């Protein structure tokens, strides 16, 4: 069913599964705040708190908004071998918003890339798990990120390389929303589109908050779907905390056989920690004491 938008300019198509598909047109999927997180989502968040506790610091809001995206990727979508992280047939998953790495560390540990106990060493001198993820140090991490705006160019290169090798593995790049203020992202988007990289999927963790405040105040991104589309991506929008919807949209990738896919995931920064949700003040804490750790665990219990 095609629905015309207010200004008569864009049309969107509501699918059965709670996300919006758009080969050419789409807008509007928002996060449904009334849906409850399930036990697995809560447990993964507990592991995030475990790492925050281990490092006594970390990007709280940035990691929490990513959980369902990473969970669905590692549970249902990505091909990989935890015991052979460099397996040539693996899908390449690049967390471009490297500061959200705890969410990825948690999934990698859970899947057996390294022991869960490593989470306790987060950010410590001799840890493999730094405040940003480093390839070569952390099994399963494809690129050392942390400087924003690097993942999509690298993803384009990898997707081109896979194409040359006739390797049908896919590349997934996850950026933040503030991150895509960076021009390098748009440079890469133009190139991905030029090369028709259907093996490349760009997910935006659209939590509407960047480091210093709401994106609407710091640097508004709307109309975001129009931007991706104008830069040559086939676009879908999805509630980034809705497991079923994420599964469905990610299983339908590529959305178009001749274009790269862009998936705008509507999320909540700090999701699951009521007092931290939607608040830039919880983007990062350089000091997390036991009391706060307790509050974080406590907040998860009330969900």
């Amino acid at each position, binding site marked *: 069913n095609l629905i015309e938008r207010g200004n008569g300019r864009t049309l969107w198509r509501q699918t059965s599964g709670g996300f919006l598909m758009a080969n050419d047109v789409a807008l509007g999927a928002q996060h449904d705040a009334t849906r409850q997180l399930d036990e697995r989502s809560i447990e993964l968040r507990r592991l995030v708190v475990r790492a925050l506790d281990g490092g006594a610091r970390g990007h709280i809001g940035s990691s929490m908004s990513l959980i369902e995206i990473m969970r669905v990727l590692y549970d249902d979508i990505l091909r990989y071998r935890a015991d052979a992280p460099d397996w040539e047939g693996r899908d390449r998953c690049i967390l471009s918003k490297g500061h959200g790495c705890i969410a990825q560390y948690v999934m990698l540990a859970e899947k057996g890339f390294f022991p869960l106990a490593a989470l306790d060493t987060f*950010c410590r001198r*001799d840890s493999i798990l730094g*405040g940003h993820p480093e390839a070569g140090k952390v099994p399963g991490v494809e690129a050392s990120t942390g400087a924003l705006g690097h993942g999509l160019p690298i993803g384009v290169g990898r997707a081109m390389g896979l194409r040359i090798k006739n390797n049908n593995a896919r590349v997934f790049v996850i950026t933040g929303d503030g991150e895509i203020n960076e021009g390098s992202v748009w440079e890469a988007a133009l190139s991905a589109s030029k090369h028709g990289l259907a093996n490349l999927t760009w997910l935006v963790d659209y939590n509407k908050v960047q480091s210093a405040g709401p994106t609407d105040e710091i640097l508004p991104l709307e109309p975001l779907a129009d931007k991706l589309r104008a830069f040559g991506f086939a676009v879908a929008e999805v509630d980034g905390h809705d497991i079923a919807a994420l599964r469905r949209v990610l299983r339908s990738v590529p959305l178009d056989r001749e274009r790269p896919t862009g998936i705008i995931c509507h999320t909540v920064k700090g999701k699951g920690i009521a007092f931290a949700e939607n608040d830039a003040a919880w983007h990062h804490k350089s000091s997390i004491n036991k009391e706060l750790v307790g509050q974080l665990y406590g907040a998860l219990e009330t969900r």
Partner: protein
Amino acid sequence: MRPACVDKVFELARRDERVTYIGSDLDPPIVKRMKSEMPGRAWMEGVSEQHVVGMAAGLAMEGFIPFVHTIATFITRRCYEQVAVDLCLHNLPVRLIGNGGGLVYAPLGPTHLAIEDIAIMRALPNMTVVSVCDADEMKRFMDQTLDWPGPIYIRLAKGYDPIVSRAELGFKIGKAIVMREAAGGKKRVLLVTTGVTTTRALEAAEALEADGIETTLLHMHTVKPLDTAALVEHAGSCDLVVTVEEHTIVGGLGSAVLDALVEHLSGAMPPVKRLGIPDDFAHKYGNQDQLMELYGIHPQGIADSVRDGLRRRAA
């Protein structure tokens, strides 16, 4: 040092309406102050260092003095061409405030460490590079930024560093400060330092004094333009010169010191040891002090290097 710096921007803005402030998605508390204290002349821009530097250049062309504030490694690496062309080539009075110079962001890994910022900023004509040692000195320095003609790179340390600077020694951009002077002992060492390595080296100097080793400590808060006169004056009569920086040993303070000494003391060069970060990315996390220790630029490491240098000299 960071609050002192930002406070000063607001104070200068009250005094001088040319002052403007541009953040790059950095510090939420600042946003609120900006809006109340300098409405219309302060902005929190996005994560777009290239644009932010160009925008600052445009403001400076219109007569303003913009202070641009973000993380040190991003304001130097990510927009290097904009710094070179928009600021240095045009020689505009833009001030770049780089948060977390050196190893401050140790737990965040190598993408966040600013280890070659001084090297690449010094390589640009017209650029001034300043790295004060504490919050008090920051205030004295900031007062002088209104009248300095070209661009300045301001390297911030971690913040809440101990105060070692002294008001009575004054402050002038481009003028080194003698923080302690060797008494007329037998073994005379010149320590040349910048930023918080000054603090570390002062501690080392105390320990050395207990061993009878006399040190002069020249605090080079301004790495460019370098105070060659002060350097040559103190180095000439020394048994050993040791430079200490929280920065790669390639192209930073140590190299600047060598360039100047070789040019002016040709033939009569004292031995020079350069301490700093080896030419490598950090392989450890932890904290700033742990990495400084790893690299031997903590008080003990500095003292040991001085002793070792003197031993070699004697041998």
